[in-house]
């Protein structure tokens, strides 16, 4: 491995800007770090270069641990967005800078310089000053300069940001070619997904300081694991669907008969449908793929090679669409069609059409939507406007429904609704919340969020589970939550007081939990080992700061609400209960 990052974390003013990033980059690989501005990708690059220190974790380059090695001894070449050329030096002097520092002889320097200028096709410009060159030429000089001392790793920080489209294209080609020719391991940071697709062997997508997913470009595009990656890499329609025994069901239609619920248990899922995977036709019979619903064309936009349509689904306010269109009009399905498709079936705004789906991808995320649940409609509405819940739903690009359960929390009264609890049920934290949680869990609610009125966005999320059956689901839910909040994840393992001799069991479980979180869910978390009673230890840890959240896996709800009553009614921290009984 050329570059190995292990749990790299960097805080800035309390909040993590790079949050537990672990990553292996192979020899000669071209790796692109992609993310919106402020996602921590540039900070991570600077950490690899050694220009900014890290608070936690290790960095090694070519098997050498460089965590505490100064930038100038790391053997990396760095190219900046604004070129950062030395303006008072000629092109030759700029390129030879690293060689001069190393006291290389003039003849060898000149030879190397000529070699580099040939590599970036700038022969003969040796004596120019940077100000006499175009932007593209300046960046070529910067690339040559960064390669002069034969670094083992080339780092590029948004190198095309300041260039216009055509030069950008050209320079992309040059850099890719140079990289292949030298076989140098390269990391490029960008916010431009097209650039990432064009250059990368592998892409890593960052958001809120976390490395969400990594993989080959086509893999990430066709099979994203998270909402963020699905919508950041290209356009995507997110649709709330149900996984039933017959397949994926959207509204009343089964669209993907192959994806069946495994144990016959229905659950809510988030499906990704790319705009180019949607077909429109006059009638259901004319479709050449699975029928989704009927809809109305809202707008038609011609953009050259492709035509963009916005369709509203028939079926009124209960549209399953999660991606909100611009404006208050609400959700609209985005569709792109080729010229050929346009000729086959022309559409006008206002026209009613049949909509079909060619390919659907179901996100593995366990959190689909929120349902604010309370005994009265008014309370439910109020709860659904809680700022943290609204923020969370907005970040997850999902919606908050409300549900009125008059019998909520009354002992001995069975749940009446025929409708099962799908998605994440939310209740307010108050003196009744323990009883209500118990009631809901018995009614079959699987993910239950107990939300205090004044809850803040957490900076730390504590993870714990009681019962091995809940373990995997808890990790999956935690991973999903932590993709959407900038918080550090801490698994708190609590074991009975050791009695005589050490207890190796606790340590092993901790390590297993960490590696499972990493391997199966892509979640990097710290681990802590405590001894004593789980409720006491968790409460003690929570009491350290109000900006925390607890995610707790539960196998048997009855014991749980009894033991954790105090924590559930305290109303100080949000508690997300993940209820999974034995299979």
């Amino acid at each position, binding site marked *: 491995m050329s570059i190995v990052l292990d749990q790299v974390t960097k805080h800035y003013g309390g909040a993590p800007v790079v949050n537990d990033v672990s990553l292996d980059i192979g020899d000669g690989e071209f790796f692109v770090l992609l993310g919106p501005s402020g996602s921590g990708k540039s900070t991570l690059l*600077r950490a690899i270069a050694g220009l900014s220190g890290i608070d936690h974790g290790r960095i090694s380059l070519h098997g050498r641990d460089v965590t505490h090695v*100064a930038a100038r001894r790391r053997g990396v070449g760095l190219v900046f967005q604004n070129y950062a050329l030395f303006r008072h030096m000629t092109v030759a002097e700029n390129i030879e800078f690293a060689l001069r520092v190393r006291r290389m002889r003039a003849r060898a320097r000149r030879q190397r310089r000529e070699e580099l200028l040939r590599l970036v096709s700038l022969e003969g410009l040796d004596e120019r*000053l940077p100000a006499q060159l175009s932007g593209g030429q300046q960046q070529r000089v910067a690339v040559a300069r960064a390669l002069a001392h034969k670094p083992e790793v080339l780092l590029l920080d948004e190198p095309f940001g300041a260039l216009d489209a055509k030069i950008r294209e050209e320079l992309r080609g040059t850099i890719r070619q140079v990289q292949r020719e030298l076989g140098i391991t390269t990391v490029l940071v960008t916010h431009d997904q097209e650039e990432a697709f064009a250059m990368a062997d592998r892409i890593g997508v960052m958001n809120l300081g976390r490395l969400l997913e990594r993989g080959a470009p086509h893999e990430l595009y066709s099979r994203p694991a998270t909402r963020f990656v699905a919508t950041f890499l290209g356009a995507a329609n997110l649709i709330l669907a149900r996984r039933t025994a017959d397949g994926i069901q959207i509204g009343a239609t089964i669209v993907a008969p192959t994806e069946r619920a495994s144990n016959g248990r229905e659950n809510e899922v988030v499906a990704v449908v790319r705009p180019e995977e949607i077909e429109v036709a006059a009638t259901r019979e004319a479709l050449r793929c699975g029928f989704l619903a009927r809809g109305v064309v809202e707008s038609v936009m011609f953009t050259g090679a492709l035509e963009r349509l916005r369709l509203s689904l028939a079926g009124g306010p209960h549209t399953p669409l999660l991606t909100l269109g611009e404006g208050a009009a609400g959700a609209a399905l985005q569709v792109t069609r080729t010229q050929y498709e346009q000729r086959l079936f022309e559409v006008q705004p206002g026209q009613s059409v049949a909509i079909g789906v060619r390919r659907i991808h179901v996100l593995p995320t366990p959190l689909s939507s929120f349902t604010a649940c309370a005994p009265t409609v008014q309370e439910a509405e109020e709860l659904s406007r809680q700022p943290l819940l609204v923020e969370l739903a907005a970040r997850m690009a999902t919606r908050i429904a409300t549900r009125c359960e008059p019998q909520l929390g009354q002992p001995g009264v069975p749940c009446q609704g025929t409708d099962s609890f799908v998605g994440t049920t939310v209740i307010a934290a108050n003196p009744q919340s323990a009883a209500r949680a118990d009631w809901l869990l018995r009614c079959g609610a699987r993910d239950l969020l107990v939300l205090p009125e004044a809850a803040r966005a957490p900076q730390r999320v504590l993870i714990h589970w009681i019962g091995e059956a809940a373990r995997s689901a808890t990790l999956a839910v935690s991973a999903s939550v932590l993709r959407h909040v900038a918080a550090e994840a801490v698994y708190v393992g609590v074991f009975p007081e050791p009695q005589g001799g050490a207890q190796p069991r606790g340590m092993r479980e901790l390590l297993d939990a960490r590696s499972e979180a990493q391997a199966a869910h892509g979640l990097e978390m710290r681990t802590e080992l405590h001894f004593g009673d789980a409720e006491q230890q968790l409460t003690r840890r929570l009491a350290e700061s109000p900006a925390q959240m607890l995610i707790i896996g539960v196998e048997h709800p009855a014991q749980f609400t009894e033991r954790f009553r105090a924590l559930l009614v305290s109303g100080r921290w949000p508690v997300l209960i993940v209820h999974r009984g034995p299979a």
Partner: protein
Amino acid sequence: MSFRQPSNLPGFGLTFGFTTVFLSTIVLLPLAALVVTATSLHWSDFWHTVLSARALGSYRLSFGASLLAASINLVFGFIIAWTLVRYEFPGRKLIDALIDMPFALPTAVSGIALTTVFAQNGWIGRYLEPLGIKVAYTWLGVTLALTLISMPFAVRAVQPALLEVQRDLEDAAETLGAGRLYAFRRIILPAIAPALLTGFTLAFARAVGEYGSVIFISGNLPMKTEITPLLIVIHLEQFDYGGAAALGLVMLVISFVMLLTINLLQAWGRRDQVRAAR
């Protein structure tokens, strides 16, 4: 090349006319009057006045102390500017504002304040006295006063140039293997050299022309701590307008030659950028 440069901006005639009239009235005319007054003297009287031992001593002090003050400000002004530009610390804005204080203070006040501190029984002077260091009423005091009043020029000239030196440049130098000192010497210093020189020039010019603060701290001993502007005032008080003008003329010529030299130096230093701009 025609005298009039083609330009999209209107009003060349107006602005050029205004510049000429303004400069003539404010700068050239008084200077001409100085020269005319000086020529009212006989050649022998002129030489006698400007080459007298007392006059020569005052030139040495005026220009020597001014050069020294400007040099001190070159170093410490840079350090102050560096601190203000590069670091965030509580009270930074306050210190930034404090830099301009010598501008706003009547120079006589500065002189009196300095004398209070550095006189033999002053706050600092009393501790320097046993060490055999006398500040007030010596050339050291003169230098100190000139350093104080010319300091803002040095700081303010360097500050914007430092702001323009991007951190990226240092980062680039570091990843290329340069140590801090090397990066400073090869990257930062060349980038701000013109600004440093400008600061030096301004500080020097300001110091040469200073009068108010120096007369309080210098003690004004002829040949020892008497600056040329004071000598001019002494001539004026004796109604020797010709002599005063003659000394003024000498100061004018020396100052002009020095400033011109520095400007030429600067132009020579910038030739690369000028070439690049073409």
